[in-house]
């Protein structure tokens, strides 16, 4: 089965996945740069298009690096 997988991946039928941390970093950079050009928070779709990814996979990558820090910002500021 290893061969089948390799064939499918080499054929470009399956996207080779990058590490979640790598994706999360790209998401953050893209989000910040879009924030600058749009002058507002970008939507997930805007980030997804820039990175050629699905919105759902972006959410999963963000979870991996933990971005639940908006808490302190809102409550304790």
């Amino acid at each position, binding site marked *: 089965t290893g061969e089948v997988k390799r064939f499918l991946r080499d054929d470009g039928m399956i996207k080779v996945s990058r590490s979640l941390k790598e994706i999360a970093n790209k998401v953050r950079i893209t989000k910040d740069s879009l924030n600058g050009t749009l002058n507002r928070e*970008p*939507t*997930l779709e805007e980030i997804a298009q820039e990175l050629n990814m*699905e*919105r759902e996979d972006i959410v999963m990558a963000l979870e991996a690096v933990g971005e639940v820090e908006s808490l302190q910002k809102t*409550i304790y500021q």
Partner: protein
Amino acid sequence: MNTKQTNEMQIEFDSKSENEGFARVAVAAFLTQLNPTVEEVADVKTAVSEAVTNSIIHGYEKKRGKIFIRCIMQEDEIVVSISDKGKGIADIKKAMEPLFTTKPELERSGMGFAFMEAFMDQVDVISEVGIGTTVTMKKKIENSSTFRVSGDELNG
């Protein structure tokens, strides 16, 4: 004729703290269909985390039980209900007061409901002692492009 587009999902899982992350990502992944910002996703995740943690810690007191999540999206709004069949809440009004807790040994004590109310537009709690608790939360997504035109782009 009802022209409103809706979409719905339900999850059921064991009341183990390892599942808190799964529950929050599942709801967040579903929410992406409303095209939220990263901040809006984080808000919903935080609220879901707090409600699920409450079901695990207070509802089932770490014994094994089932937690149920129901999500409905209607136009630009998401409605998330989190339910348990645990011990229930005797005084809901008191339970929702900031800093009120029956387990003072925990971190962020007594701020769970305050967080849910801060991050969501609306929070409603139904509970009965010995029967269980349901927390229903709503949030409008500001720049929502409502639903995706088709899922075909998924294969792109």
